[in-house]
């Protein structure tokens, strides 16, 4: 990857402007800014319904310096397919610029759940676009309802931590692997632990012809119940505890991007957020669930390491 000169980056205007309405400390705009920072060609963005879309397009304002389209919740994949197809012919006709990059942004709800089908269709058809999922592990715009990306045992408003049921019972869906199974040229998973990691991954995704997918774990201070300043700290814990492995799949080849030298127990990650506080309530601790969580993390990590050797 060509070296990224940070100083130069500060000169480039980011496709996402100031003045958007995301909550203070939200991980999504940080992810979007870093993702598009090193993209040289002009970009057209398609968004699925979600926090990012609603907060950046409060009419009559738009926080997008680049063309932006949002159609509905379940069709970012289909929407960007139409735009990309139009570009293929309109650029031939000289009506549109030759080199335009197409980037779709969806939250976990819009990507793991309701938008999965249109994403899968767009990947299978091989459109030349990059889909970035800003994954805050829940339907946060509507008040932290659970999605298939919500981690096991997490407290969400439709899988609440009650006296009988301790939060979400199911493990989160591993969408990154489902997307990798589409055998597309570039798939990656990362978080906000290290800006250069996200910047270079998306630069590579966008410059890879054909479909590319980057799954970015982003904290939601309000509903992860962390301080708005703790964005990077929690992401580091997620990566260091291997709760959120950081890796790439390049033309089917698995490459581990970050192997924490001294990994942190999952418990440290869980204790850093209020959405898991019910596991540590005095007298009603659920260390069994914490232990099971560690078992899951370790098993998934081993699986990933095997794939990286394979």
């Amino acid at each position, binding site marked *: 990857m060509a070296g990224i000169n940070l100083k130069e980056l500060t000169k480039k205007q980011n496709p996402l402007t100031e003045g958007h309405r995301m909550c203070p*400390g939200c991980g999504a705009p940080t992810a979007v800014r870093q993702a598009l920072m090193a993209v040289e060609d002009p970009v057209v963005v398609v968004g699925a319904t979600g926090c990012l879309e609603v907060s950046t397009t409060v009419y009559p304002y738009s926080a997008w310096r680049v063309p932006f389209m949002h159609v509905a919740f379940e069709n970012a994949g289909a929407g960007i397919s139409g735009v990309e197809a139009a570009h293929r012919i309109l650029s031939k006709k000289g009506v549109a610029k030759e080199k335009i990059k197409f980037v779709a942004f969806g939250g976990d709800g819009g990507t793991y759940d309701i938008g999965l089908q249109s994403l899968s269709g767009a990947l299978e058809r091989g459109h030349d676009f990059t889909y970035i999922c800003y994954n805050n592990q829940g339907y946060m715009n509507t008040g932290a309802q659970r999605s298939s990306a919500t981690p096991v045992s997490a407290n969400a408003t439709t899988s609440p931590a009650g006296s009988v049921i301790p939060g979400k019972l199911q493990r989160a869906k591993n969408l990154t692997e489902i997307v990798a199974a589409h055998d597309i040229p570039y798939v990656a998973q990362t978080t906000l632990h290290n800006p250069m990691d996200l910047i270079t991954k998306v630069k590579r995704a966008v410059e890879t012809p054909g479909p590319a997918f980057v799954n970015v774990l982003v904290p939601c201070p309000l509903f992860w119940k962390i301080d708005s300043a703790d964005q990077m700290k929690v992401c580091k814990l997620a990566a260091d505890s291997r709760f959120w492995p950081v890796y790439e799949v390049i033309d089917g080849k698995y490459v581990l991007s970050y192997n924490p030298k001294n990994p942190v127990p999952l418990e440290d990650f869980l204790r850093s957020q209020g959405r898991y506080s019910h596991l540590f309530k005095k007298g009603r601790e659920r260390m069994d669930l914490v232990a099971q969580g560690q078992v899951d993390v370790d098993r998934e990590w081993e699986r990933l390491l095997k794939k990286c050797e394979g």
Partner: protein
Amino acid sequence: MSKPKCWQDVPPATIAWGASALDVETGLWRSMRPVLDENKCISCLKCWLQCPDSSIKTNEEGRVCGINMFFCKGCGVCAQVCPVNAISMHQEADFTGEKREHGEDPGKVADHVK
């Protein structure tokens, strides 16, 4: 960018002009405020990279030269990621007297709807 006053001057389709959110003063949201200590700052740009609201100002040479109070929401991410603790957080109330340029108040609903 003036808000449309009647349906006749609403632009066609549902389009909004690109980057028009630059008129929106999200700085009104702050209850805490970051203050940059220029002597400590080594301009490593970690804060600039992480700021969710692109509010860390940089000059021609790409060095950090202040924080944009029109937009900053006071989340404190910059203060936390700064490796040399050059940014400290303060109560916004301590700065009430300060003169500031005004933009559209994001919370204010247009009068014809009230």
